[in-house]
């Protein structure tokens, strides 16, 4: 065996000391010389934040606390793993739901226990070789330089590395779809499918249809995929996105429910299921799924106070105020000193007090909520703002309600799904179409601002156009359309009138902002590609 582990930093995460020793000894026989150990998920994450490991071998079942899947999810979100780190999930248990759950978090490798040194060696060597070859591509992707990533990918493909060819094609097709080169993406996926019926290639074709707005073709593609590969969970997620885009909430609920049946460990799917069932009034499904989300959240990076309050709201709706209060008290224990959680709690308490006939307490709670909301400002999540507005309406504080509604509509005028939530809220309290006029007016104003800006730019008045857009951004900082159009104008100008460092910096800041306010990564890909091209030109000119 080649001494592939010499000098590699390796972390073993395993709660059982005898097993930890066994794995360490196995690694020593493979010439490993830099081994660290952690006995639970939390310690593993601390170790990963201090050391940039080359290899992490993480047991799935780590006793009380985070499991291996949760460690991986958290390490990803906290960016504790470099692209060349090989993350292996080890597991003794092999129930279908556990395996599907673990695979969901996409470890580089999944290894069933017991395993021997030879098995471990093969898996590690395979991944280390692959990562070493793909390093140049992954590095560019991580930095957001998509044009350079594509260039590197094509270069490697031309070098004809048979062992990573399929993997490279997958990355290449994803990059093509990301930067809006749909034809290239489709061509690569179709070529792959011609050789072998691989589920991710079918999925990729469906995603491209989805991005092009061809929802029925996308839906067809995902349905076909699930018929042949029913265990491919991502297929359910994408099919649910199609239904969501078509505002078919019953279908969203049913398809997510199927995925949850297969893999009940996924907290994000449980949340989605709960929220969808809640919207369409399916109380039993919603309650079960919220409870699952709350319990799965205990050690998860995706733990959220909204799961608690949504469950409590459900209890309030079904006239079980004791259960609602109990849920809120559990939440306060889990989220001490968290202003958003507190705001969620007092908002709901307003409703609970009102329902119980305690008008004075209800009004005191609402004042507390409004004060907290003012302190939080734009940090209050939009679903919570909607709840506060609703509570204000119900408490006859129309002025406060309208102020919140006005700002929500302005900032999220291009988010049709959220506008539907907003409409549903109003219908729910007997105020059908209450904000429709404002919505339409805001839409027209947005279009007018855009047109005006583009016209100014076309007339060569770049700084006037920019001033207009910057003003619009200041007044609706979370409006995706405005941010994207401002970015487009800057990029266009950089291409037309030459590269200017100040504009490049502004473009970069806008790209970051777009990501922060949740612009879909596929929408952003084309702009990111243009930006990375300009940046390359700039760097080449400088050197």
């Amino acid at each position: 065996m080649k001494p592939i582990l010499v000098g590699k930093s390796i972390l073993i995460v395993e709660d059982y000391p005898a097993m930890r020793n066994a794995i360490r000894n196995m690694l020593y026989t493979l010439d490993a010389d830099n081994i660290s150990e952690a006995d639970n998920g939390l310690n593993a994450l601390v170790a990963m934040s201090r050391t940039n490991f080359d290899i992490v071998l993480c047991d799935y079942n780590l006793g009380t606390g985070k499991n291996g899947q949760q460690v991986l999810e958290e390490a990803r979100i906290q960016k504790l793993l470099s692209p060349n780190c090989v993350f292996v999930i080890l597991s003794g248990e092999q129930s279908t739901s556990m395996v599907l759950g673990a695979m969901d978090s996409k470890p580089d490798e999944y290894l069933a226990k017991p395993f021997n040194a030879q098995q471990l060696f093969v898996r590690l060597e395979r991944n280390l070789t692959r990562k070493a070859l793909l390093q140049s591509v992954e590095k560019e992707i991580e930095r957001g330089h998509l044009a350079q990533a594509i260039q590197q990918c094509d270069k490697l493909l031309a070098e004809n590395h048979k062992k990573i060819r399929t993997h490279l094609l997958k990355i290449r097709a994803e990059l093509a779809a990301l930067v809006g080169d749909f034809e290239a993406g489709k061509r690569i996926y179709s070529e792959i499918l011609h050789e072998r019926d691989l589920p991710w290639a079918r999925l990729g074709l469906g995603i491209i249809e989805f991005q092009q707005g061809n929802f029925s073709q996308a839906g067809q593609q995902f349905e076909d995929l699930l018929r042949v590969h029913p265990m491919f969970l991502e297929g359910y997620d994408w099919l649910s996105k199609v239904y969501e885009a078509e505002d078919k909430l019953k279908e969203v609920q049913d398809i997510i429910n199927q995925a949850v049946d297969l893999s009940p460990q996924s907290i994000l799917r449980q949340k989605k299921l709960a929220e969808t069932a809640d919207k369409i009034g399916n109380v039993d499904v919603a309650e079960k799924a919220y409870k699952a989300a709350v319990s799965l959240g205990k050690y998860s990076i995706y733990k959220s106070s909204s799961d608690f309050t949504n469950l409590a709201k459900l209890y309030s709706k079904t006239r079980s105020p004791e259960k609602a209060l109990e849920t809120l008290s559990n939440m306060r224990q889990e989220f001490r000193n968290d202003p958003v959680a507190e705001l969620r709690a007092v908002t709901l308490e307003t409703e609970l007090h009102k329902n119980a006939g305690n008008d004075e307490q209800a009004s005191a709670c609402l004042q507390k909520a409004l004060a907290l909301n003012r302190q939080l400002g734009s940090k209050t999540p939009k679903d919570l703002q909607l709840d506060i507005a609703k509570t204000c309406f119900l408490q006859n504080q129309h002025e406060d309600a309208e102020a919140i509604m006005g700002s929500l509509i302005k900032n999220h005028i291009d988010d049709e799904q959220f506008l539907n939530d907003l409409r549903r809220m109003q219908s729910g309290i007997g105020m059908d179409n209450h904000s429709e006029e404002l919505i339409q007016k805001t839409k027209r104003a947005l279009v007018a601002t855009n047109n005006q800006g583009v016209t100014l730019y076309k007339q060569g008045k770049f700084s006037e156009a920019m001033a207009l857009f910057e003003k619009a951004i200041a007044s609706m900082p979370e409006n995706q359309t405005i941010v994207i159009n401002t970015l487009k104008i800057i990029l266009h100008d950089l291409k037309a009138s030459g590269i200017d460092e100040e504009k490049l910096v502004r473009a970069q800041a806008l790209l970051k902002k777009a990501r922060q306010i949740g612009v879909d990564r596929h929408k952003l890909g084309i702009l990111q590609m243009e930006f990375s091209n300009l940046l390359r030109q700039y760097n080449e000119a400088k050197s």
Partner: protein
Amino acid sequence: MNTEAKDNALFPVILGSTVHDIKNSLGTLLGLIQQLSGKQSPDQVDDFRQLEFEANRINHSLMQLLVMYKIDSNTFGLIEDEYAALDLLNEAKAQQDRLSQLQNIQVSIECSDDVLCYCDFQHVSNALGTILNNAQRYSRKKVVISASEVEGYLLFSIEDDGEGYPQHLLNADLSNQSNLDWVTGNTGLGLYFVAAIAGFHKNRDKSGFVKIDNNSRLGGARFSLYLP
């Protein structure tokens, strides 16, 4: 109250957690044996090999049992990816190393390192290990394991220099799940298991399958596994 339904619901849970428990113990046991075997005096080496071989065998049987149970309850699924065929062969050989040393049998591999195989690594390497185990027990001195691409399939062959398969096995239809008369004894059980794993590997309209004959280049039995 329907006690029958209750029993049925309970059994999978008990089976699952019992197997899980045994597997954990086995894992620790195997680790200990490997550690201790390095420190033993030369006259005990064979005992330790035997010990390790038996523990591996229990593990193998347990895996087979678990897989067959999952297939039976429709919860079996593969974790497929692209692997070097050579890695699969190395893995199968390594699993059976102790037996080869015990019986003084030479196992050689014929495969170039650019042959790729899309499959479930663990199940296919275990399946090959199972067949290799049989081949070693019935061979005299040599076994050859190989992999190559043949007409849109990846073909794994295991050839030995023994007496060859008995007639009743050669006559059996290995892919026929309804007539299992041939599934007797260790060899038949192993073949049944490997045929089941092969059948789960699919690519469009093609499925994996196994074939056996006595056309080994070494004069004994030849086993062939075709994966699409």
